[in-house]
């Protein structure tokens, strides 16, 4: 379906992505395990590397990779961290 824009069109049609921070030291990073096999091993290594950079890390896990993360997990993550790294593939 095609709609006509009711606005003054001073904003881009698509929402622009937020600019990433220029440094991560001092931020809290969430690591989201989507429950793919050995994803945790990869994220363990990331956590170690981040720890060496002085970055606080929180770990999270999605119940299954076949569905989007449940709302309460998303809300929890959003309220606790500044950035998220998600282990997406196998």
């Amino acid at each position, binding site marked *: *379906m*095609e*709609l*006509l*824009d*009711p606005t*003054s069109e001073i904003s881009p*049609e698509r929402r622009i992505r937020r600019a990433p921070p220029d440094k991560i030291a001092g931020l809290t990073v969430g690591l989201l395990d989507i429950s793919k096999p050995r994803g945790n091993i990869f994220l363990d290594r990331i956590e170690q590397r981040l720890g060496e950079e002085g970055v606080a890390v929180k770990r999270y896990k999605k119940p299954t990779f076949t569905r989007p993360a449940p709302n309460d997990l998303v809300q929890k993550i959003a309220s606790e961290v500044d950035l998220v790294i998600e282990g997406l593939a196998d």
Partner: protein
Amino acid sequence: MTVSISPTGITDGLVLVAKRDCQTCELVQPVMRELARGARPLAIYSQDDPEFPEGVAGVRDDRALEVSFRLGIETVPTLIRLEGGREVERVVGWQRDEWRALTGVNSLGEGLPEWRPGCGSKSVEPGIIDELEIKYGDVAFKSRRIEIDPHEDEIEAMYSRGWSDGLPLVPPTRLRVHRMLKGTNRQPSEVLGLLPPDLQPVTIEKVAVNAVMAGCAPEYMPVVIAAVEAVLLEPFNMHGVLATTMFCAPILIVNGPVARAIGMNARGNALGQGNRANATIGRAVQLCVRNVGGGRPQGVDRSTLGTPGKYTFCFAEDEEHSFWEPLSVERGFARGTSTVTVFAGDAVHGIVDQQSRTPESLARSFALSLRSVSHYKLAQGADAILVVCPEHERTFKAAGWTKARLRQELDGLLQLPAEEVVRGAGGIAEGVPAAALGDRKTIPKFRKDGLLIVRAGGDAGMFSAVIAGWGASGAIGSTPVTHVIKV
């Protein structure tokens, strides 16, 4: 009309447009067969059935009605002669002599009646013409097109883009906006002004898009346009009305014949829900302010509490059953002129007076409620609207009180004693500063012309209402504006 070669592909020859569902077209099938057998190139377009006319090969399928639209067919059968790619003549309906003259076939239609009127072309059936104009016409919109994925819910998509006031919107498709624009003769590209707070140009087209979303019918467009023009006028101060921490919304009061013509409600529940015109006209203006002007709550709109009137607050004055002159006439417009008055106002405050039988007693009830506008101890701040219901107006009518007489009485009753309203009086810090009072013993509650009186409501119930205005009125705030509705 001159038509180019492109729709039919015929340079020199005949074009015939017909449909099966037409007794005249049925009648002249033999004529069509005879012409098809003839030497001259002939294209027959069938609007509803490519098997009609029967016994003719190569009938062209115009069920999409594109050729009928491009040729401007209003009646079937229509016979057109083309020369050099241009139309030179056409006959509408069956008229034997004219068909013979156009085709040069002097035996055409022998044995048939001399003439029969045609039937309506499918391309001009109600509702269809708008769709064809969008599909095949050169309807051009300036507004950006927003693509909604086929698997995305368009209602959700509009919410996620922030276009909504909280309630669902009607999706502004090109077809709907095209139909909405037919409600006005104004050009879509016309700029009404720069809408606060972003001071962006608001065009007739943008008004139409937002009017579609609000749920307006095309016939409401003149009122919506007039209301947007009115809020753009400097004395109304739309920016201030939007940005304030106070409550107000632009309240629209419609006078004149247009109210009845479009079915507005001036009677029972006039200030409430249930009437499409009342509901959507006010909403359209607010959506323009939100979407074109960029004014949103907790954005430039800093209202502490707001009011439900910010969804929509629009009604018509009941002129027909009132013995008073309408608001528009009071404000200098001729009776019979349609106007919209925009007023920066809050919510409805009811006046329950079921006991007064004299105008004096009832006026005192009104004055008590009017006194509480903004704050019982404030004066010369807000304007107000007094909405007088039928059963209350009856009391004034019985005593022969004109609106002016009531006004005069209220002016007297609303001279507030300085010692009551001054700051600190009654143990209340709020009030009129002593310096502002000076030596005066009294101070009028309202500034000159600050009180509007209108008549509305259902027959039963002794319940009038006060609608308080924005705490900043007149030159320092907002002044009510009455604007002519050009239909």
